């Protein structure tokens, strides 16, 4: 209940009162989609649609960095909640859910656009749901963990933008993993976003990913999600030493 309340006030109500944020986070993935629509082929458009979903989930997940730091450092909302029965894990889950709520209009738009193509087979839809959830969890838990390291808000906001861009553009999301040197495609799985994209590219039949890279991608996504969940629950400490 506590998590859902936090998701409601920091997700639903904020979304309703500040909808401009949706336009803000959709600008980049929509611009890339337009670019590929003009300059790319059908495969590139499909890649940009999958990339859009990953980018929306990642940028919103990482945004927890700003919210968590704002709540802890500036408005002292975290201090207010420490003196209540709420568990730190429920607090983090609430914040993370609010990021998903925030991402949902953007995710819905890209899913609708993707369903206008022949991408949405049952296998692909299943893989897409699993990868999106994994990317959302890993990026939001990564964002929360990093937020605990900051003492000043000034450094938090640029960090969120940097991480979001690096995670969304550097790994093989908007380009096929086959661009990477042969035998080294697994490098793309070093980021959870790259791993998710390689799995989706493979399931959609867009890219013939090397078997090692595919295994690395699945392992990486599971490992990142689990490790970051554990790490964030350790960092979500209610008490300072």
């Amino acid at each position, binding site marked *: 209940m506590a998590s859902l309340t936090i998701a*409601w*006030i920091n997700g639903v109500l904020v979304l309703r009162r500040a909808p401009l944020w949706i336009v803000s986070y959709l600008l980049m993935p929509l611009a890339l989609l337009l670019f590929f629509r003009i300059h790319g082929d059908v495969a590139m458009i499909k890649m940009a649609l999958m990339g859009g979903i990953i980018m929306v989930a990642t940028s919103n997940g990482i945004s927890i960095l700003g919210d968590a730091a704002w709540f802890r450092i500036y408005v002292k909302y975290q201090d207010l909640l420490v003196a*209540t*029965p709420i568990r730190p894990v429920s607090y983090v889950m609430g914040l993370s859910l609010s990021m998903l709520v925030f991402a949902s209009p953007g995710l819905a738009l890209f899913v609708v656009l993707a369903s206008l193509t022949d991408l949405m087979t049952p296998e692909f839809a299943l893989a897409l749901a699993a990868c999106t959830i994994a990317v959302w969890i890993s990026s939001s838990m990564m964002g929360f963990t990093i937020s605990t390291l900051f003492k000043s808000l000034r450094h938090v906001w640029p960090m969120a933008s940097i991480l979001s861009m690096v995670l969304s553009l550097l790994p093989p999301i908007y380009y096929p993993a086959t661009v990477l040197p042969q035998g080294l495609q697994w490098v793309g799985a070093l980021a959870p976003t790259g791993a998710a994209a390689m799995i989706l590219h493979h399931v959609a039949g867009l890219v013939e990913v090397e078997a090692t890279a595919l295994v690395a991608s699945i392992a990486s996504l599971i490992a990142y999600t689990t490790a970051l969940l554990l790490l964030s629950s350790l960092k979500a400490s209610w008490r300072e030493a």
Partner: protein
Amino acid sequence: MGAVVSKGVWKRYKNGVVALKGVSFSVEKGRLVALLGRNGAGKTTWVRIASTQLLPTQGTVEVLGLDVVADPWSVRELIAMVPQEGFPLDILTPFEFVHSYLLIRGYGRSEAKKLAREYLALLELEPHAKRTIGELSGGLKRRVLVAAVLASGAEVLFLDEPTIGLDPLARRGVWRALKEAKRAGGTMLLTTHYMDEAESLADEVVIVHEGRVLFSGTVGEARRAVGHDFKVEVYGDLEVEGYEGLRLRGVTVFYVDEGEVDEVLRRAVAKGYESVVKPTSLEDLFIKLTGERIEEGG
């Protein structure tokens, strides 16, 4: 058994700063105790330890018999806290903020709604209940926070500078609400450097200076501890034989009884200094104990 018992609490931060040096005092159930001290005296550090946010280096704090270090989750069920310099979330309305805080504490939706309305009314926030908090003044924002914490019904409330930044009228609004909560049997610990706040609200005061408790007792005991009924503030450097003058930034303060006032005034007039006679207050105990005024803190 005290509702809150602090025994020899020390806090040394990682940077070497020693904020608390053996703080001991106790608060009886249903009492409102003011922790008085200048900025940096250690009040907030102590409140953060007692409200389970910070570990002490040494010593113990018990809330209703529960050790805050050993049993923080049981303590958290019983306490609520207004953090220093805290603000409610600006995108919400006051009602949404108080309501959501109560839901997070485990209240059911209808009970939370009822309490939120009741306490917003008590803090005179009803006219603003539908505006977003971002549109409210700093003082109103602070009252929203106080409303949420009072509405929690927690048995022990920690209020860290709850009226800082409020105008005198708004401060009195918060005082009324705190008095109401006290009448309902709540135990409250509030930190402040407003002497009038402590005198108006507190049953007892604890004066903290540079991490140490210099005085702990009732407001009446504090007044008596000054030792005199009046003070004469002389705006100049004055010495009067047989009287000890305390020099504070160009003002010499004499603590005297009624029959001695005229003598000090005569000496001041003879030297051509202006002077003022006032009844002694809580602040005078602070001055006597520390040699400083409380407002001079940075």
